[in-house]
């Protein structure tokens, strides 16, 4: 059912040069209940069994399901584990157990050192108190002493870039300002183990970059568990990953990009999405005619192959004079390229059909999944006839795992 494909559990007798294991998770499971009333009643029962030491094996009771099922991993100092998966895959539940907020139903977690959690920023803020007062509230909850906060107060305010507003009640802060203040306090932690949940999503770009700079700075001395739906971020900072689905681990190990590819594959909906259509023209056929493998309906090309796409259009109105724009998007839905070709004069129309293919030679996109959006328009203003998102997806195979969308062939010339 749940296959551990590439599990790389390290042997326990590690050489001395390896940094120590800070987080060890063995066979961790957690169940939740789908129904509130039942859940509360189970809570009462658990209170009673908690007093008897919880020795008994836990089975699923009616209306329960495994939110986390049999997860195991080890994490050393300097390593960063990315937890990825769909909403409801069990990532946050796993984090809560790692953070000691809830107890597992089976298995064991052993954590060494000081644990810091960026699960919620600005915990303990009171809206009507000033930013300055709330630094103390938040700091106290994160485990700082008064002296530590006194010493770091100026640094925190400067990091949050809130010098001007620090004595204003927090309820008048924008959400971005609150997050900035919260992170500025949390950034003062020097944890051995850092747990990060989707908190950095808010805040403007400048601040996100600042956060990552800070995380990069502490990474060498920390074991980080990072939950995010932002795959570029995951591939940037993580050196191992667990892809979770329905509570279990379906892919796990040092192959972060492999896990990310599988994650994207789970979303691969090959349905094209027509976002605008004025009834002038229809796309009948679109396919990749380059030799390729077809994996689960997803065409696969190798880096350096020629990409040839065949189109077949149905012209529905006589006076249609279409121009075609083909735009490539990466898996993050960022537009990354547009195909350019010399205009062919005299489009051949047979039976109101329009057929052509486009060839891009020696494709140098980096490994990953890409999709094509099409705009069919007319005139200089490019007024649209038809706009199709995700008309086609394909995957580029390449060994090199890189974050940018292009891997450009380059020659090295020795000038010595």
């Amino acid at each position, binding site marked *: 059912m749940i296959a551990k494909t590439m599990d790389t559990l390290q042997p326990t007798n590690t050489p001395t040069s390896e940094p120590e294991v800070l987080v060890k998770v063995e066979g961790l499971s957690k169940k939740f209940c789908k129904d509130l009333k039942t859940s509360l009643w189970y*809570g009462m029962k658990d209170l009673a069994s908690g007093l008897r030491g919880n020795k008994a094996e836990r089975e699923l009771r009616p209306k329960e399901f495994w939110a986390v099922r049999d997860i195991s991993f080890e994490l050393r100092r300097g390593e960063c584990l990315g937890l990825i998966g769909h909403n409801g895959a069990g990532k946050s539940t796993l984090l809560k157990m790692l953070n000691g907020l*809830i107890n597992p139903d*089976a298995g064991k977690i*052993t954590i060494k050192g000081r644990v810091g959690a960026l699960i919620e920023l600005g915990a303990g803020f009171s809206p009507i108190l000033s930013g300055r007062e709330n630094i103390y509230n938040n700091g106290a909850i*994160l485990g700082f002493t*008064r002296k530590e906060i006194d010493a770091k107060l100026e640094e925190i305010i400067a990091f949050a870039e809130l010098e001007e507003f620090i004595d204003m009640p927090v309820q008048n802060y924008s959400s971005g300002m609150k997050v900035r203040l919260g992170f500025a306090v949390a950034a003062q932690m020097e944890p051995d183990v850092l747990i990060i949940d989707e908190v950095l999503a808010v805040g403007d770009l400048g601040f996100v970059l600042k956060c990552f700079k800070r995380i990069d700075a502490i990474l060498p001395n920390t074991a980080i568990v990072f939950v995010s739906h932002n795959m570029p971020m995951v591939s940037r900072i993580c050196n191992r990953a667990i892809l979770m689905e329905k509570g279990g681990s379906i892919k796990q190990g040092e192959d972060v990009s492999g896990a990310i590819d599988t994650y994207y594959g789970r979303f691969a909906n090959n349905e094209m999405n027509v976002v605008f259509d004025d009834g002038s023209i229809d796309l009948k056929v679109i396919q990749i005619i380059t030799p390729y493998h077809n994996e689960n309906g997803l065409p696969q090309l190798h880096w350096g192959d020629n990409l040839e796409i065949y189109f077949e259009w149905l012209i529905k109105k006589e006076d249609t004079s279409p121009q075609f724009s083909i735009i490539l998007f990466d898996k993050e839905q960022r537009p990354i390229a547009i195909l350019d070709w010399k205009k062919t004069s005299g489009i051949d129309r047979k039976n109101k059909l329009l057929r052509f293919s486009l060839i891009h030679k020696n494709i140098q996109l980096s490994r990953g999944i890409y999709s094509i959006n099409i705009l069919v328009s007319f005139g200089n203003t490019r007024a649209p006839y038809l706009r199709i998102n995700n008309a086609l997806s394909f995957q580029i195979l390449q060994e090199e795992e890189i974050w940018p969308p292009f891997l450009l062939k380059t020659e090295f010339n020795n000038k010595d």
Partner: protein
Amino acid sequence: MALETKVYQKENNLRIGRLVRESLTDMYASRFLARQLAVRDISAQYRQSYLGIVWAFITPLTTAVVWIFLNKSGTIQLTDTGIPYPVFAFSGTLLWSILTESINSPRTSTNAAQGILTKINFPKEALIISGIYKLLFNSAIKVVLLIGFIFLFGVGYHHTLWLFPLALFGAILLGTTIGLFLTPIGMLYNDVGKIIGFGLQFVMYITPVVYAMPKEGLMKVLMELNPFTPVILTARDLAVGFTPQYLTYYFIVLAACVPLLFLGLVFYRISIPIIVERLSA
């Protein structure tokens, strides 16, 4: 430097001694947090209010005023209390309000912290301590008012007045102990909070809060069984300079509270993760 190791698993360690020690260690370690939370709540409360401190003593004061009126107008005939009735009534309602607040305090503090309980791991004992701080703050205001009453109505100064805070401490100890046991269940079901509020109204009438203990009859039996009675009576006797009559029972109650308090702390400590799991948002 040796790193602290934490183990999270299903099985609980049930060695009471160790759990109590951990609980007390966390309590000490989180003293700044407890104070900070109390300061936060108190200053937030007063910053958004004009009447401010009045709210701290308005309930016992109005209850006392109602009973003083009932007594003075002759609506209700009460036995002689030995001291001016306003002092008797106010000291009673004041002590009673401290008792009920301390029973509710662990539950309300924990409930108010739901948002952070499900997100951040911090020593939960700090919530209880911060609740006690807030309670002490509110009580201090009431006590000042009571001392005003004592002198205003000519009861005058007695040396035993200095022991009054100690008696208050007994009331808070008793209340907190009861509250700790009710908190985990009260976090799951709102009914508990309602039952406490509802039940305590009735218990007040079998406690010598606004009238003295009768010389005989069913009421006397009920009042003498009621563990709140010695706490209220002893505190009041000390404040007005009487010799406490139920001192033995008072000390029995306190002596029973101490081990129960530790047990309550352990229960609280074990229960919180179970509760958080059911609350998790």
